[in-house]
């Protein structure tokens, strides 16, 4: 099935994407003809059972992994077929990442970590936007600290700020709250939602947690490498319901 919302141009788009790992006997089709659009200024969650292809879909969308078949677009850029230089430029200009393991550089301070993508691209931060980001993540008094001196939640907020500061077309987050307790997780999720509501950021987030998914504007459900369901304006309960139905042997349409 195809998940499409709205007529406005999408921030990211997958068009009949197939991803096959390995060959011969060991062949695994992680994605089987996924088509999806993630429109601008919205917060989309991707859910599904373990091994359903969530991470794979995200990697393909972000141009971190190549697709076996189909095309991927970020904004008006066709990702499929880009060479290394093109992919590098894409990551600089259009894509931000938030990882489950935070992935901060231990030798740099929080501030340096936040500004790293800009300094790699050789760009100056927009001071007004930088202030907004720092205030939104609420880390102003922690900027000089190193990751080891920060709690997990604070580290993840630093990672969020790092993704936001370059104002990418779309931010991909793979289980950003997976390593956090519920309170820190809630803080991070609120912050992500705010950046969508207030600043028009586009976010695509993979998660296992129905409560986390409830922060999103829309949830896309994957099973066995295919999009099987979708929820708009989800709540924890509707997400849980849908997941229960997915676990049931009967395939559920929307």
């Amino acid at each position: 099935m195809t998940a499409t919302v709205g007529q406005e141009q999408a921030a990211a788009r997958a068009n009949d994407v197939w991803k096959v790992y390995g060959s011969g006997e060991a062949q695994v089709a992680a994605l089987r003809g996924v088509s999806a659009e993630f429109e601008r200024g919205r917060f989309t969650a991707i859910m599904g059972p373990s091994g359903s292809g969530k991470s794979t879909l995200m990697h393909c969308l972000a141009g971190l992994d190549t697709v076996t078949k189909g095309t991927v677009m970020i904004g008006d850029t066709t990702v499929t077929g880009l060479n290394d230089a093109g992919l590098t430029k894409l990551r600089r200009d259009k894509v931000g990442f938030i990882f489950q393991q935070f992935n901060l550089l231990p030798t740099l301070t929080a501030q340096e970590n936040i500004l790293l993508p800009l300094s790699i691209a050789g760009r100056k931060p927009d001071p007004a936007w930088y202030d907004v980001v720092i205030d939104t993540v609420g880390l102003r008094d922690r900027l000089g600290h190193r990751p080891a001196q920060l709690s997990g939640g604070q580290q993840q907020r630093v990672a969020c700020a790092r993704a936001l500061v370059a104002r990418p077309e779309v931010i991909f987050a793979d289980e950003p709250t997976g390593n956090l307790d519920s309170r820190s997780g809630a803080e991070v999720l609120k912050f992500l939602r705010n950046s969508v509501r207030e600043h028009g950021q586009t976010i695509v987030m993979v998660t296992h947690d129905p409560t986390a998914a409830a922060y999103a504007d829309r949830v896309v459900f994957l099973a066995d490498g295919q999009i099987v369901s979708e929820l708009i304006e989800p709540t924890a309960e509707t997400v849980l319901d849908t997941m229960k139905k997915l676990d049931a042997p009967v395939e559920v349409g929307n």
Partner: protein
Amino acid sequence: MLRATLKSLLARKLRLLLSGLAVVLGVMFVSGAFVLTDTLGRSFDAVFADAYAEVDVSVEAKPKIDVSTAEGMPLSTPMPASVLDRVKAVPGVADAAGVVAAEGARMIGSNGKVVTSFGPPQLGQNWLGESDLLELREGRGPQADDEIVINAALAEAGKVKVGDRVGVLTLAPKKEFTLVGVFGYSGGRDSIGGANEVYFTTPVAQQLMLGKPDVFSNISVQAADGTTPAALRDELARTLGADYQVKTGEQLAADASAGLKEGLSFFNKILLGFAAVALLVGTFLILNTFSIIVAQRTRELALMRAIGASGKQVIGSVVLEALAVGLIASVLGLAAGIGVGALLAYLFGQLAGGLTLAGLGVPASAVFGAFAVGMLITVVAALLPALRASRIPPIAAMQDVATPDRPLTKVTIGGAVVTGIGAVLLFLGLGGHAGDSTLATILGGVLFAFIGVALLTPIISRPVVSLLGAMFSWSVPGKLGRLNSGRNPRRTAITAAALMVGIALVTGVTVILDSAKGSIGALAEDTIKAELVISGSTSGPRPASFDPAVLEKAAAIPGVQMVDGEYGDMAVVGGQRTWVAVSSNVAALQQIFGAKAAAGDISKLAPDQMLVSSDTAKARNLSVGSTVPVQLSRGDARTYTVSGIYESSQLTNPVTLPPQAAADFAIPQPIQGFLQLAPGTSVDAVQPQIERLLADSPEVSVADRAGFIEQQTGQLDSLLQMIQILLALAIVIAVLGIINTLALSVLERTRELGLLRAIGLRRAQTMRMITVEAVVISIFGALLGVVVGTGLGAAVVEALKDEGITDLILPWGQMVTFLILAAIIGVVAAVLPAIRAARINVLGAIAHD
């Protein structure tokens, strides 16, 4: 990006410094060599500028034979005393003095031994009185024929004082003189440039140093006021004609200094050679360190890529890190090099009899060389890891991608190709097909061979390491250690390869020198039919010689059947510079040295006849009856007729002249003497009698054949020792490499080690595990080194077959020693990393992310 790179660099400073140490040492040798040369060079300049300060112009007859410093002191041709009057008559000459100054006045010290010199000349001169430069410290100048004065440094070295009777060896055998004065130089100096000087009265100096009365070796001229030295030089050159060389004092100083500097360049090359070895080993270490660092930083680098760093930026960050390490290593190496250069210059100055050193000089070449070498090597070594780093996919930031075991096919093929190139270069170089660039070709071959084998090492390491490791598999820690050393074949291989280089060089040199020693010994044993040999060991540029009268007296001793004295000199034979020899007893060629006639009669020589070797005959197209003009160091050119040709062998000289010719050699005294005893004569009975004959020739001694062989090969032994000590340095660097690799892999395996400890591995067992890993790696390296070294050594020996190294002698004892040494090295190298591993906090390690 820059800041991120520098910060991560600082976080690993110790590790990088350890690998940078090899570069520090290499740079130290490079800059030390330049500092030494510069400092000594300027010291020589200053000394000689001073020594020739009072000479405006000097007149000298053209030498008959051009002799380079490597072959000995140039011998100026004596000129008749009448030239002095001609010089004095030239307008613009204020004063002129006839000078006798020649190398070869060897004073016998109070201990009965000749005061030797390690390079500076031993001059015999005529006393012309004190001057601004030269001042008597004690006594007076020589007035009678048996009086001499000497410089203070020589007096001290020989422990003689005014009033003593002292023996001096010159062109003539030992003569006794009364020491009537000791002099020094202005500024309280005891010598100039370490030279030993003996002053005689003019007639004695002429006779003993130049061999003739009424001759001078040069004329020192003072210019009249208003005449410049250069103008006077030109005027004198015009008046005296082409037979004379006229030079200003400045030119003489520059020439004298240049001669010594040329000698220095040899020393320089040795230092640069060791720099090359240190840097080669260092390259392996840096390559390894950066590979490990890149592997450890996979996630970090992938993250960089994920948030927008380009492949080039990743390469840039690794290269930048290398540049920083290279820069720091260069700075440290330069500082150490300046220290080493200063120290060596000081030692050299002491050895040269108190050479006054000019201020320490750090030439631009030292600074430039240090930074160029240090930074270039580091960056080149880091290039491969940098490329690998740039290929890390950004997706690696998201997942724990175990770096797949990359196949070794490419490395192995590359290694085989590089080894092949090395072998071809060695074949060309050693086989003499490379012409002028033989040395470069051989060195290139060795370099390629090392790199090639290093590339092949990973594939070799699998079977060999598991075999070696099997020895330790009886205990769990041993087994774990063995598995660890086989875990990353590339890393094990490069670490072992660094050790291989050092051990291979030592083994190779040992094989070559042992083979040379064995071959020389065997040759002497088989061919020289002399029971007693008179010879001296040479420490300075001038070979030891002895009184020719000893030969006649020895021949008269009952039981002595044949005596031969060997003389040698560089001469111009048929227009070409050629080594010529004289055997006092031509018959000895056949009877003592086993020469075989190829044509004509080689058993006797008339005064105008010469013998040549078959090689010389072939090269110069000579046959019996050919006539050849020969110019010796002294006297006029003469024409000799070839009366016989002997087959070339190790013991034959290119040209043999009749005994009469020896009088015109630079050293008209025999350098070696060979005595053949009648059958049944006891060597022990004759030897003491010869010793007595040699009482007045303290430079030489008599030995039986075994003693002689030992004496001849003993020099090789000390050469071998010197090389081994210096190459030990390469091994020390390699040990640092092993420590580094182990320390890094301990760090890398913190979690795993913590886990092992958590499930019950004891501290001691942890340490044992690390030690086994180290021992396996270092024995593997040593094994490779022994094999490669033996191969290289054998190749060289094979190539030198024609030069007389006929026997390949493998130093089995040494090889076993190296392997045992390697095991010890492994244990030593493991100490620190093992302690570190044992100290790992179990809880912390497991919680460690």
